[in-house]
């Protein structure tokens, strides 16, 4: 199996090259076949790899394939080497499998688009880069994938480039994530200076010997890596790009801005867990950022009216949960939430895409409604996804992953009551807006004329994802319910087990609290948006709730803040110096010599009287000087 490792990223890459160079001459069928086929085959290989991993030598199996020496000089050696362990496999599986489903969906969804080839070229390049990111054996190669996905995200957000707003959104996404990326690369420099290596396994091996726990250097490194992760994963305060990123086509939002790329930060932290374990401060910061983000973004998701922006804020919020889990040391719980989240969030986005298409590009949920009857299949799929997002107890995948995070937020070594309460508040909010979404979009009366229903190419991926959104959680049960822990055992070879602190209440009590809160969130959403909408109307007219709504709606005014703090000063600074102050300096020299030249040439005017006067003045001057001295 090991020798076929390279095919996983190379197949989508080949698809990209073919589509980018020859896409113009290909028929739509051929384009769809190339674009989708390459990812599907990669997914098949990934599944084979998983079964291979499971079947035989699953003890401490790591697949390594060295392609070629990338660059090597002095004490630095970087190879294009792929390395796949259990953690990478989870990510590879999600990227290729969910990616393949989304590609299939997109082959129908984007059918009418003029730039069909360009779309699939970018999507394939994205999948290839993302695979390189998770398969990299050293940090430089990881960074290659990391920047590659950023570029693809940029290209796809701005896919419909003729609208200036889309391009602005794309630029914003690229630049804000680049800020995080730069922190990451400084972290890489620091790691190299301290450890003399950029190989991930070597770093993880040597770090505990080289650094004492909590030392300044390791904390700095961990915080820099965290900052990199925050940029890509849209965590506060670098979250503002993700809602705008919804300018891209909906399959892009599903694949890049929900299921895979935005979780790159989670992967990075999990991959470098040894570094974080050495720095308790960085762990706490990670958990704190996760908790803040999940509430901040959750509040914004509650009040949005654009269906894609609701899902975008919800994505930020759910990644906040993953960061919270990472920060308290619940490594496998974080990855498990990534795993389930990828299914249900991709599903929600794709279903939203179907709805948007069906209603002739209507994105405002309050102009939707009554779709339950028109699109029953999509409705039930969406319901499965929303249920999973809300973490409906026992029958949704999201419950199993979120329950684990909430439990560890309180009881893990790094956990405490504050994180737990933040998680609970988030759970309430999530359940609330999930219910709101279902009720407003699918129930009630129809408000907008409808188009033609989706074809089978679009519904089959939805059904598969819906099935997984319900069942994917069954592989990892809470400790007190059932002794099935396939997922954490799978990751046990890579990530350390979560250690619990003493003195926590029984798991059962915490679970009951979480379940009650989730259910009450769903009920509140149902009550406010379906049973008794008058309450809401009354709130909207009173001052304080309206102001709060406005505040949340604008994403807590982060955009305005950055506009004042960074963008405007930057524009001012570059604006005043557009003509380059140093140019004025050298022009000054030119002006001076010209002036000097003019005054000297003035004296040489050919007039005899002038010269005689000059001679006389000179003589007088010399005599005077001699008299004085």
């Amino acid at each position, binding site marked *: 199996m090991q020798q076929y490792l390279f095919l996983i990223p190379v197949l989508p890459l080949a698809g990209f090259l073919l589509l980018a160079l020859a896409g113009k001459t290909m028929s739509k069928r051929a384009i769809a076949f190339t674009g989708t086929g390459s990812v599907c085959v990669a997914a098949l290989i990934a599944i084979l790899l998983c079964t291979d991993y499971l079947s035989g030598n699953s003890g401490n199996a790591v697949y390594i394939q060295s392609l070629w020496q990338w*660059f090597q000089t002095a004490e630095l050696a970087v190879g294009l080497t792929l390395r796949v362990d259990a953690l990478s496999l989870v990510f590879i599986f999600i990227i290729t499998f969910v990616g393949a489903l989304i590609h299939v969906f997109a082959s129908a969804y984007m059918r009418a688009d003029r730039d069909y080839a360009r779309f699939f070229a970018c999507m394939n390049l994205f999948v290839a880069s993302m695979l390189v990111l998770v398969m990299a054996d050293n940090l430089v190669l990881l960074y290659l994938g990391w920047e590659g996905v950023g570029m693809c995200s940029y290209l796809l957000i701005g896919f419909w480039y*003729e609208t200036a707003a889309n391009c602005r959104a794309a630029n914003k996404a690229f630049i804000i994530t680049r800020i995080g990326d730069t922190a990451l690369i400084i972290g890489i*420099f620091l790691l190299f200076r301290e450890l003399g290596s950029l190989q991930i396994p070597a770093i993880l091996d040597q770090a505990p010997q080289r650094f004492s726990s909590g030392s300044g250097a390791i904390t700095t490194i961990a915080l820099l890596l965290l900052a990199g992760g925050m940029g890509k994963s849209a965590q506060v305060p670098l979250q503002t790009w993700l809602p705008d990123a919804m300018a891209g086509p909906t399959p892009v939002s599903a694949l890049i801005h929900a299921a895979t790329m935005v979780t790159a930060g989670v992967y990075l932290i999990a991959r470098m867990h040894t570094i974080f374990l050495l720095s308790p401060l960085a762990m706490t910061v990670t958990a704190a950022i996760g908790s803040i983000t999940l509430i901040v973004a959750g509040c914004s998701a509650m009040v949005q009216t654009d269906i894609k922006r609701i899902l975008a804020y919800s994505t930020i919020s759910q990644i906040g949960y993953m960061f919270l889990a990472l920060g308290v040391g619940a490594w496998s719980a974080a990855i498990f939430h990534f795993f389930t989240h990828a299914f249900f969030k991709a599903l929600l986005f794709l279903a939203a895409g179907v709805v948007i298409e069906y209603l002739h590009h209507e994105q405002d949920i309050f102009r939707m409604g009554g779709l339950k009857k028109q699109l029953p299949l999509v409705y039930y799929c969406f319901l499965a996804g929303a249920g999973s997002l809300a973490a409906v107890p026992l029958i949704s995948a999201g419950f199993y992953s979120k329950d684990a995070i909430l439990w560890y937020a309180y009881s893990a070594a790094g956990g405490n009551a504050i994180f737990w309460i933040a998680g609970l508040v988030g759970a309430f909010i999530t359940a609330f807006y999930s219910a709101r979404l279902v009720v407003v979009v699918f129930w009630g009366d129809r408000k907008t004329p409808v188009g033609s229903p989706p074809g089978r190419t679009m519904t089959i991926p939805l059904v598969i994802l819906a099935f997984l959104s319900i069942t994917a959680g069954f592989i990892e049960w809470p400790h007190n319910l059932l002794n099935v822990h396939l997922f954490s055992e799978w990751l046990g070879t890579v990530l350390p087990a979560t250690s619990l602190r003493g003195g926590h209440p029984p798991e059962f009590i915490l679970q009951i609290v979480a379940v009650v809160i989730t259910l009450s969130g769903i009920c509140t959403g149902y009550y406010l948006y379906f049973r008794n909408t008058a309450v809401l109307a009354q709130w909207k007219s009173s001052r304080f709730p309206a102001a709060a709504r406005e505040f949340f709606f604008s994403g807590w005014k982060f955009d305005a803040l950055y506009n004042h703090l960074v963008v405007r000063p*930057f524009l001012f600074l570059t604006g005043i110096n557009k003509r380059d102050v140093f140019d004025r300096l050298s022009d000054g020299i030119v002006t001076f010599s010209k002036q000097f030249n003019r005054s000297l040439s003035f004296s040489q005017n050919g007039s005899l009287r002038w010269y005689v006067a000059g001679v006389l003045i000179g003589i007088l001057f010399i005599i005077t000087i001699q008299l004085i001295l």
Partner: protein
Amino acid sequence: MILVIPIIVLLLGGCSCWLSASKRFVVCRWIALVAMLAGLVVFSSLAMTYRGGVNGTAWLIDYRVNWIPAIGISFHIALDGLSLILQLLTYFLGTLAVLCSWTEIRQRTGFYFFNLLATIAGISGVFIAMDLFLFYFFWELMLVPMYFLIAIWGDSNRRYASYKFFIFTQAGGLLMLLAILALYFIHGQQTGAYSFGYFDLLQTTIQPSAARWIMSGFLVAFLVKLPMVPLHNWLPDAHSEAPTAGSLILAGLLLKTGAYGILRFVLTLFPEQAAAIASWAMLMGVIGIIYGALLAFAQTDIKRLIAYTSVSHMGFVLLGIFSFREIALQGVVMQMLAHGISTGALFLLAGMLKERLHTREINKMGGLWTLMPAMGGAAMLFTMASLGLPMLGNFIAEFLVLLGTFQVNSTLTTIASIGLVLAAVYSLRMMQSVFLGPLAISGTYRDLSLREWVIIAVLSCSIVVLGLYPQPVMDLVKAALNNIIHHSSGGI
């Protein structure tokens, strides 16, 4: 001997271009192309021969004949890995410069190609001259024809730009001449043998106080060429007013002679003094990175914008050189190549746009992707290269420079890294206002022609190869760089 042939071919070719043009001006571009290709073939075959290096020494070829023995001037040229790779770049970009002038130049074509070839001959000579008198000769040889290229075939403001270019570089050049003479006399008085030979002068021991001044003479000449902020302001004017091939040569090659000069002469002839100013030089490099990026963001003239990105990129070169680390120096060489290719390509694209739209103002462009998808794709690739996207050559360069300097001065390196963010800001702005957004012009415009497509394809392949498999280049220059570090290690 083989080293001289390409230069002679270029000069002869240039003369015959000039002579033949009066009869049939189509002939001269073919002559120019063949002359460039001949040089490219020679140095490619040399690169294949010496890719493993020669055991024991950094020097691959050494050729020397007496020229004016009475005052110690010899025609001494020598080739090491660094020179070889820069020669390859020179003839590579030279060939493309001929190709991109294929139809652009319609008046005084013969004289144009004469100047083009003479400039390339001068640059080619600079990279191999090992006699300081000869070096200065080539240094001037590349300057004067370049002045004509700007002054005759430039854009509307060409007189101002060409004067500025000439005065800035000539002032620096004269200081270097003074420094060379000072070095020559000090060496002569010490040993009794007067010589301009680089290897002789390496042995000179100079009073520190004198050495500081002599080094400054060299350094100013090279820093003007590099350029270092605040000596950079000839560059935006010259680059934006020059014809396309002129911009290509200026950005791709002329700036590299500054970096080469510092590496070859300043670091080795004056190791202690170079070490003494190292942190200041690195600081100036960082200032250049940030300042160039800020200026680039503000420009609305596309060629001026690209010119300021050059200032920013060359800041990395200055930063890397004065860290005296092998990793960083490898990055410097890589930056010289990658910047030559990527910025050269951007200038070519800007030239193609100008040919079609007759403007350089980006506010008058927009949405061009719709009309010219192939050109848009190429621009996207080189924009990404310019902002340092991995997979492309510039990333390797910037990564190595920053990684190497971080071990020496982490604060400055961290500040320099801000340049990576700023690079994204200005690059994306350029991309957006030219190729993306709503279509701002009407009419029909041709996408890349076959000739243009070939040029762009060759450049694209090179930048990708440099990004994914830079190892051959690094192996080739390793010995030369170690030699430089060895000579300068007395100072550390």
